[in-house]
């Protein structure tokens, strides 16, 4: 009897490892809630990568990836835990997500780590996620805001401004970024006159702007979201004449900002994580072929996150997250042949042949310990009513 059981178990194992399977990959995004307008294109980015992998037919002997979306609401930690729990019970082998830092921490601690599911977030950038005890199950294709705070402080000081007011969106992202910036800026000799939160999703920000105006400053750092309170604050500040120079971190920089304010941002500047070059251009083209806007915030990061899951599975020869989690860093970093968007088939082929790859993806992925993007930032300005790249940091 014991032998029989053992034999059955062994067969099951072998069958599981060798045969083609449908591998479910969760996509945990805030489809409703404060960032619901960003979620669809992030999902599109992730699905684009999965489609590409499926079309190649090369993943683990012809296995296919099946995206399973779940609504984590972004704002509500318990809703996010419930959503990811549902994904876990559906048997997902990896998750692209979470989306916002707070809910990502909650779902990672409550589900991801205890149940052993790899989570790769395209967009959670809070410094708190660098120090969390993730047992190697958490990665992110976006850099920590601790790094962005430093870069932003440097850029502002380089431009001869040493006296700024800060407003941040009242969540883990905004608060984390505002704090890391303030610390870096003050260490380098700058002054922060006020660091005040604003709530997203309000119609009117004139009261917030009045407070920032009273505190003063040569520029206003807006650590918010472009289609949320961030733009509202900028609008109110421009209208009331409180500030005319703004500093925009990653949540704000993008085409929507230019569409909204046009030539009103002549003296403003900002930065966002971005690697210009072939990888990004190819991704933008792939995205427009697939009928979505590839330059939307974190869509490219999502493509890379989903790609990393597939490539790490291939490298490990299994879809078991407890095994392939150790391969994520390997496929993302040198040595090996560089893999850009559209070349996932090539990457899968090389890995199947036992060779190394260095997945660069749409954002020039380079993961540093503890499993997050090193972060190349692009400094931009808005002279002439367009988004211009100035240089890279």
């Amino acid at each position, binding site marked *: 009897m014991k032998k029989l059981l053992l034999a059955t178990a062994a067969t099951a194992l072998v069958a599981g490892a060798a045969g083609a399977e449908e591998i479910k990959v969760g996509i945990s995004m805030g489809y409703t809630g404060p960032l619901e307008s960003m979620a669809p294109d992030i999902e599109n980015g992730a699905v684009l990568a999965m489609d590409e992998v499926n079309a190649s037919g090369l993943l683990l002997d012809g296995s296919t990836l099946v995206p399973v979306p779940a609504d984590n609401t972004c704002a509500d930690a318990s809703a996010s835990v419930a959503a990811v729990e549902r994904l876990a019970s559906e048997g997902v082998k990896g998750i692209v997500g979470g989306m916002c830092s707070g809910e990502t921490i909650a779902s990672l601690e409550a589900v991801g780590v205890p149940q052993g599911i790899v989570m790769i977030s395209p967009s959670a950038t809070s410094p708190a996620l660098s120090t969390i005890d993730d047992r190697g199950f958490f990665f992110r294709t976006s850099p920590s805001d601790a790094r962005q705070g430093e870069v932003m402080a440097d850029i502002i000081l380089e431009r001869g401004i040493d006296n700024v007011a800060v407003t941040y969106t009242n969540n883990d992202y905004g608060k984390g970024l505002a704090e890391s910036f303030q610390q870096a800026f003050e260490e380098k000799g700058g002054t922060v006159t006020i660091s005040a939160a604003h709530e997203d999703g309000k119609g009117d920000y004139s009261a917030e702007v009045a407070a920032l105006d*009273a505190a*003063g400053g040569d520029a206003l750092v807006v650590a918010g979201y472009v289609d949320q309170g961030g733009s509202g604050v900028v609008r109110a500040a421009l209208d009331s004449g409180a500030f005319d120079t703004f500093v925009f971190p990653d949540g704000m920089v993008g085409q929507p900002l230019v569409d909204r304010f046009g030539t009103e941002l002549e003296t403003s500047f900002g930065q966002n994580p971005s690697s210009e070059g072939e990888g990004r251009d190819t991704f933008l083209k792939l995205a427009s072929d697939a009928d979505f806007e590839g330059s939307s915030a974190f869509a490219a990061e999502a493509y890379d996150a989903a790609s990393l899951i597939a490539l790490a599975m291939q490298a490990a020869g299994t879809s078991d997250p407890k095994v392939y989690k150790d391969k994520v860093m390997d496929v993302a970093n040198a040595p090996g042949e560089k893999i850009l968007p559209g070349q996932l088939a090539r990457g899968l082929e090389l890995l199947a042949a036992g060779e190394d790859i260095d997945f660069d993806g749409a954002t020039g992925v380079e993961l540093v310990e503890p499993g997050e993007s090193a972060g190349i930032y692009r400094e931009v300005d808005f002279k002439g009513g367009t988004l211009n790249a100035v240089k890279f940091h």
Partner: protein
Amino acid sequence: MDLLNALVAVLNFVVIPATAYGAQLALGALGVTLIYGILRFSNFAHGDTMAFGTAMVILLTWGLQGLGIALTPLPTALLALPVAIALTALLMLGTDRVVYRFYRRKRAAPIIFVMASVGVMFIMNGLTRLVIGVDEIRFDDGARFIIGVADFRRWTGLEEGLALRGTQVITVAAAALTVAWLFWFLNRTRSGKAMRAYSDNEDLALLSGIDPERVVRQTWIIAAALATLAGTLYGLDKSFRAFTYFQILLPIFAAAIVGGLGNPLGAIAGGFIVAFSEVAVTYPWRKIAAYLGWESDGLMQLLSTEYKFAVSFVILIVVLLFRPTGLFRGKSV
């Protein structure tokens, strides 16, 4: 000079925004108070009626803009208003037919109406989001500023700037016209008198030959018009987002209750009281104090802006504790 600077700063950051906001709240509170006075329940769906009406205005505005029709220098949205009001009124009448009429016939307690209106609120909120989406929409066209900050500084040579937006002036003017019309309607016309009679005593009104269903229909139509107008002015002045109208429900109710529920004059006063308190309490007075020769390290802000809505709550509680019928002797809640 410093005195002038202080004056301009107060105008720019307190008086002008609070006046426009107060007019918007007043129009919203008028709708709430009218329904309370005549149909005898607090309509929680009023905020989302505003959102729905504004969504209609936006869709029609886009249509008009597509046809190349504009009202420069006024926003095109004003042209779209009448049709949007009609559409919103249809929705309200439909809702009344499907939901409220059933309870009215059963002579249900007001609390049941309130709960039903909460349900209606969720449905209308979902409907609005389905129709127009959740993104922020700006639909003000035409001349944006009557006085721009940079121009003002150049003209006066003052350090402080003053901005007066076209939408702010339109808001106040439209609110004043509407209020004047509403008072004329309620006090001078047959229908208005019938509504007041129905509000005072339903059975007596019925005995004197007033058709209650007609009164109810008229009430919903006027409420729809007020809601659409208030919502559109708010959206023009600030920005449209399907969620924000749910948030201003609290200050609107506070305004209606402060003024005395069921009392139109009270609703208007309440709107301005709530708006001015919200803005003045959360405004940091440091700069003004500095102009008046009183330097301070702190911001001199009574309450941080995150707690703006708390002001409405405090006003509500104080009024309910000390003058439950409101400042203008409305009905007790």
